């Protein structure tokens, strides 16, 4: 399954030195690998394993996930912005599928 649907909330503008809140959500089943289908077959594990946020190319926050994270993983975290630039978000699942979102922030 490809990961195509993600939502991110990043302020368009901020003051220099301001700590802004960033919110991300991606549609993903986070299949645990413990469930069985109606024929009794184990449904294979399928989870996002890693989430990375970068700010002008530098990693600022990341998460290593297990089956314990709820479906459609949601993360909210702060970021202190010192200059205008690009914030990127990348999710990678255990089938090697990745999804990237980008946002621009203007710092006055």
């Amino acid at each position, binding site marked *: 399954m490809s990961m195509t649907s993600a939502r991110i909330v990043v302020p368009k503008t901020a003051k220099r030195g301001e700590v802004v809140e960033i919110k991300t959500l991606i549609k993903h089943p986070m299949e*645990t690998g413990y*469930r069985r289908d109606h024929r009794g077959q184990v449904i294979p594990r399928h989870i996002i394993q890693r989430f990375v946020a970068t700010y002008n190319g530098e990693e600022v926050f990341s998460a*290593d996930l*297990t089956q314990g*994270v709820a479906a459609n993983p949601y993360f909210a*975290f702060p970021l202190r912005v010192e200059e205008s630039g690009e914030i990127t978000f990348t999710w990678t699942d255990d089938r090697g599928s990745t999804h990237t979102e980008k946002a621009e922030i203007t710092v006055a």
Partner: protein
Amino acid sequence: MSKSRGEGLSRRQVAAGIVAVALVPLAAGSRAAVAGDQISTALEKITGGAPVTEGRVKLEISSLAENGFSVPLTVSVDSPMTADDYVKTIHILSEKNPVAEVVKFNLSPRMGRAKVSTSIRMADTQRVLAVAEMHDGSFWSAEAHVIVTLSACIDGG
């Protein structure tokens, strides 16, 4: 839950362990290890046996979760988040989920504040431990107990 609990420890052994721990005078740093065997094992891997002190970490999670499939939590750590004083990682550990480690957050001084929110699955009524590793290698923790009405992992996703 489809994985057996206790990891080979009998109920009696676990009970004996709890009693043994309870008999030891409680230093501030020893509280975290009481949370449950699965948590203790995971904690040992994370800290390599270094002491974990209760404090500096705040774990906000509902004490009564009606839906174990998605339980919101926010973890924050008292830290200035500067280049020479910051939180490196925060681990969320569960006492009774099939996998003890729920999620690991890797933080950086660029965040400005040490505060992260997410939603987790909870297989059962249980304790949750948040452990933060500081830049200086010290470990701090906060614990919460959550009653789960509808368990994750029984069926459905």
